[in-house]
């Protein structure tokens, strides 16, 4: 039965489609600017990524440049260089530090805010703690300079007053990652609490009622009701962030780092930027960028799969 319908429709499908397309021309016209944008500036670069397999030459362009021999030449060049290990290690380490140190503060802040019963105070703390999220990385670097700069920084002036010496926070390999992670926490603690605060509202209030009748204090309720109530949200966010583990934060590192801290700070993205746009080695930089993107896609798709599997128990 179904087969015959499909057969009957088949011959005039093309004309039908065309008639429909004409009927909806207004809708298509609306999409033209957006589609052009996607075609040129989003899909164009995806095509342009073929230069990872070519010996890119500025005068010959993306299309005319000859193929690299062998095709994996630039991938091999990166993987054989000492930079591969350094940039991969730094990317993963910085990213994981940010994940491990960055997630708990948001959860703790959300739990603390949940305990506050003064509406005004709660809203005040929220408003203030979200603010750094909207400050640009350069402004945050400015605050870091104000506090930690070796010559004029406030913290260094205290240290100098106490010990007579100053600490090169911004140029020391011992301190750089700590500064990255802590400024990241400062910037995002409030913002990351929003999602947990929203998740609290799905916890059944009668659970707290019952716990109170049983004589439980606030801390017990947090431990046995609040935290388990948002466990699935925490796990979901953790998995999704693991999918982005290769994105260690280009802008933050690029703005804050300097030659002295390259050994601990240079991530894949910053290396690609320098090799591509400073040294003008386009093919090598594109190959490394592509390498990172491909691993990233596998991680993100895997993470989304995992997250989907739990979704039923979350929302």
């Amino acid at each position, binding site marked *: 039965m179904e087969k015959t319908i499909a057969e009957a429709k088949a011959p005039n499908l093309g004309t039908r*489609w065309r008639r429909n397309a004409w009927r*909806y021309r*207004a*809708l*298509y016209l*609306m*999409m033209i*600017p*957006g*589609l052009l944008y*996607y075609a040129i*500036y989003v*899909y164009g*670069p995806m*095509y*342009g*990524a073929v*230069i990872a397999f070519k010996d890119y030459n500025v005068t010959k362009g993306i299309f005319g440049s000859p193929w690299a021999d062998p095709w994996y030449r630039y991938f091999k060049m990166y993987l054989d260089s000492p930079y591969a290990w350094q940039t991969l290690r730094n990317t993963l380490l910085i990213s994981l530090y940010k994940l491990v140190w960055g997630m708990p503060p948001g959860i703790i802040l959300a739990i*603390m805010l949940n305990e*506050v019963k003064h509406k005004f105070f709660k809203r*005040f*703390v929220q*408003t*203030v703690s*979200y*603010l*750094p999220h*909207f400050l*640009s990385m*350069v402004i945050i*670097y*400015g*605050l870091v*300079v104000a*506090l930690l700069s070796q010559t*004029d920084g*406030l913290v260094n*002036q*205290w240290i100098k*007053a106490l010990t007579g010496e100053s600490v090169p926070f911004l140029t020391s390999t011992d301190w750089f990652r700590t500064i990255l992670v802590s400024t990241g926490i*400062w910037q995002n603690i409030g913002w990351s609490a*929003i*999602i947990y605060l929203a998740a609290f509202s799905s916890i059944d209030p009668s659970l707290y009622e019952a716990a109170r009748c049983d*004589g439980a*204090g*606030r*801390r017990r309720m947090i431990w046995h009701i609040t935290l388990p109530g948002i466990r699935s949200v925490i796990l979901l966010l953790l998995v999704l962030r693991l999918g982005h583990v290769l994105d260690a934060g*280009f*802008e933050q590192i690029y*703005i804050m780092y300097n030659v002295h801290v390259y050994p601990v700070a240079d991530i894949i*993205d910053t290396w*690609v*930027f320098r090799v*591509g*746009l400073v040294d003008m080695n386009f093919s090598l*930089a594109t190959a490394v*960028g592509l390498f*990172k*993107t491909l691993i990233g*896609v596998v991680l993100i798709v895997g993470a989304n799969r995992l997250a989907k599997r739990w979704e039923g128990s979350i929302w």
Partner: protein
Amino acid sequence: MTVWKDRLFLSVVYILLAGLVVSVIFPLLYVISVSLTPYSEVLKQGGFLVFPRHVTLAAYKAFLRDGLIPHAYGVTVFITVVGTFVNLVLTSLMAYPLTKKYLPGRNAFLLLIVFTTLFGGGMIPTYLIVKETGLLDTVWAMIVPGAVGSFNLLVMKAFFENLPESLDEAARIDGAGETGILLRIVLPLSMPIMATIGLFYAVGHWNEYFAAIIYVSDRKLHPLQVMLQGILRAGQSPEMNIEETMPTISLQMAAVVLTALPIVVIYPFIQKHFTKGVLLGSVKG
């Protein structure tokens, strides 16, 4: 017993939250204070100055006379206003047709858009395309390559889809075309989402740094963030800007204040739109 313990616990919570508030506000106050203090005074004080004893506007006057910061302000205001306008127009024009389930090819378009949230050409190929299309070293390089955010597009589409269908039908019976429906019915009803997404786009433009350093080498076209970065760096690494005098910490902090001020001042009034946005995104996305 529990009551006593709860009280103690709650006081600890209040103290920690107050500490967080101080940790956010203190650096900002300190920066303002340093920017208003003569440099000699900063060195003498041995550090702690939350309220400057001698106030001078010298640092700010220097920037106004110099003209670099006012010019960068102009660039940033331009890319914020024009850029956000372009973002909203393109995003809504794209989102509306995609809500029509009967539109031939809709699923293919959606798939192509969702795909871009996973995979991209990367930094260098994008640079080459921007170069090929002649945008290098123009203000448009900071507007056009990010004209539509796929995530914002999908959130807006989800919002449009939740509008009551009956309004759409009523307008159609009254003879309105698709353009009329979008302009007179969908957009007026979607002001909350337009405000939220528009603000996210606008903050992104105000904080624009990445596109500027990659695509724009002409200093006259540098937005505020790049200018500020240059001023901060000049103090840290003397090899840059040799021909210029090294900016003192007071000058640097005045530049930080000038860059941050608009965001900090406007922020409390628009904060509620942002929080709404993040929850919208997390539920739909």
